[in-house]
């Protein structure tokens, strides 16, 4: 069997696979959401230790932010070192508006809108600066936001107590009750599944193609009527929107927001999730979050103690060096390997006959 034949075959198979996946992607996200809810349920009834639930919740938060950052890094070729700060805007913003007496939904919406507004401003900034300078600028924006969180009184100094939340005005859920904590988690899992659908819809639309157009060949994008500025602003707005939604979920689940943790360290963790998970992959963000956050929280901390934080750093370097397409690409590579072995076997048979 010739090499080109093999190529054709693998391409044909990939096409068939892609077609099956393409026909019902939304159903897959729905199933994914259900599985996540189930995992949380197992943990709340005691199949897993109960602290697993908080780890799962954090994985959901990280996945959400990574999905947004992926639109910047993977699709639009832009970088932001301020993702964590916008989780902070979402979480602390919700807390502040709640403490002002607003209902939860309105507080969340206001927090998300203000974060997306700042995101749009960064987008405008990105028309003048790019690459490493954009990274540095977003770093300063992150630092400004962190200073505001820690020194402005309404954010409560060290941490902001949010307390039980009332959804739709009458469903009161507290994280102190085991059952209610599971409900809070279930809401997060559903939101994640919905947001995955949102990302999918964006990347499969004219907007998603435009994001890729401005990053891969800005000249031809402009010649086809895609305004790079417009889509940069849009990419940053959507990315901060995702981060802020993650922040709202943080406020919802943990009901208590620290002010110091929304800084560079966490932003780098999120970038690591995107890189390890695989650019442009939706499920990759989840697996990235599981590996970077989940693994070290669930297992490595027991085995390695404080050294476990080294793990994500080393993993990031290893992935960039040897597997730049990320974990999401493992599946494709496994299939390739399978066909290689299959064709090699056939070759052996032919050689034996001759």
């Amino acid at each position, binding site marked *: 069997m010739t090499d080109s034949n093999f190529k054709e075959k693998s391409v044909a198979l990939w096409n068939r696979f892609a077609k099956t996946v393409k026909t019902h992607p939304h159903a897959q996200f729905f199933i994914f959401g259900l599985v996540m809810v189930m995992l949380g349920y197992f943990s709340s009834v005691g199949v897993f230790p109960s602290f697993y639930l908080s780890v799962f919740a954090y994985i959901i938060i990280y996945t959400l932010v990574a999905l947004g950052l992926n639109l910047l890094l993977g699709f639009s070729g832009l970088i932001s070192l301020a993702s964590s700060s916008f989780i902070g805007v979402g979480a602390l913003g919700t807390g502040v508006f709640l403490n002002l007496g607003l209902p939860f939904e309105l507080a969340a919406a206001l927090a998300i809108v203000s974060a997306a507004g700042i995101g749009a401003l960064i987008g405008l900034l990105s028309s003048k600066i790019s690459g490493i300078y954009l990274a540095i600028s977003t770093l300063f924006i992150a630092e400004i936001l962190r200073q505001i969180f820690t020194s402005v009184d309404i954010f409560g100094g060290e941490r902001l107590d949010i307390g039980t939340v009332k959804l739709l005005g009458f469903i009161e859920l507290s994280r102190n009750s085991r059952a209610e904590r599971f409900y809070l988690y279930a809401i997060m899992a559903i939101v994640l599944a919905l947001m995955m659908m949102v990302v999918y819809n*964006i990347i499969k*639309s004219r907007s998603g193609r435009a994001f890729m157009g401005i990053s891969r060949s800005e000249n031809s994008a402009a010649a086809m009527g895609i305004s790079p500025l417009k889509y940069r602003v*849009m990419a940053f707005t959507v990315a901060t929107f995702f981060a802020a939604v993650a922040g709202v979920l943080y406020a919802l689940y943990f009901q208590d927001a620290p002010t110091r943790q929304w800084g560079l360290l966490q932003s780098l963790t999120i970038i690591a999730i995107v890189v390890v998970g695989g650019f442009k992959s939706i499920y990759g963000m989840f697996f990235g979050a599981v590996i970077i956050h989940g693994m070290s929280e669930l297992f490595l901390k027991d085995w390695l103690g404080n050294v476990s934080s080294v793990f994500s750093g080393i993993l990031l370097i290893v992935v960039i060096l040897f597997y730049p397409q990320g974990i999401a690409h493992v599946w494709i590579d496994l299939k390739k390997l399978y066909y290689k072995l299959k064709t090699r076997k056939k070759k052996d048979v032919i050689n034996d006959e001759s």
Partner: protein
Amino acid sequence: MSHDDYVLKLDNVTMRFGGLTAVNGLSFSIKPREIVGLIGPNGAGKTTVFNCVTQFYDTYEGTISFKVDDAITNLKDRKVTEVIDLGIARTFQNIELVPDLSILDNIMIGAHNTFKTGIVQHIFRTPKARAEEKAVREKAIEALKFMHIDHLKDQFAGGQPYGVQKKIEIARTLMSDPKLIILDEPAAGLNDSETDELETLIYRIRDEYDASVLLIEHDMGFVMEICDRVCAINFGQFLAMDTPKNIQNHPDVQEAYLGKED
């Protein structure tokens, strides 16, 4: 055909980069449904002319007018992203595709300006957004069939052979219902049979899409074969514009390409 019937008219266009004058007082025009070649030695300013027409450079002097259905537009009033709305589509000398998108999606980017729905409608997949996406997809498949590469539509654009990538770029220009198609070295890197095929395709584009074509090309056989008229420039200066046969015998053109006889 009256004398001043044109699609594109350059009037005394000059483009300077600092001290270098890349295009110097260039004037020529293209008639409707005409295929015009722009030739000149390397560095003559051909691509600069293209970039001025498509407003990638907007600091040129002189006027470039575009006329469709008796409506005349001074292109300088339009931004680079608005030029395609008028019906001017172009390809690039170095192929500019999105390598990690399928060929079909690449073609669909060409219809970007024809969409009416925005990102919010895309997020919720409103019926209107879906209908529009479907219509554009069908149109893109038509364009791919036109270029005889529809069997490759789901493959990534990145790994395709050079000839196919050139075809993708041309197919992409067809998505915006262009009145003027600007091709930057469409035959570069193609073998003889591919060049022949390209020739037929360009004729078909002119006839079926009712478009004019302006192209830069170094393959003189191709240019002389396909073009109705050829415009020759050298060091940004206009040399001559005439039928291919007359251009070949024009003393200034011969001098530009072959040097002066001592």
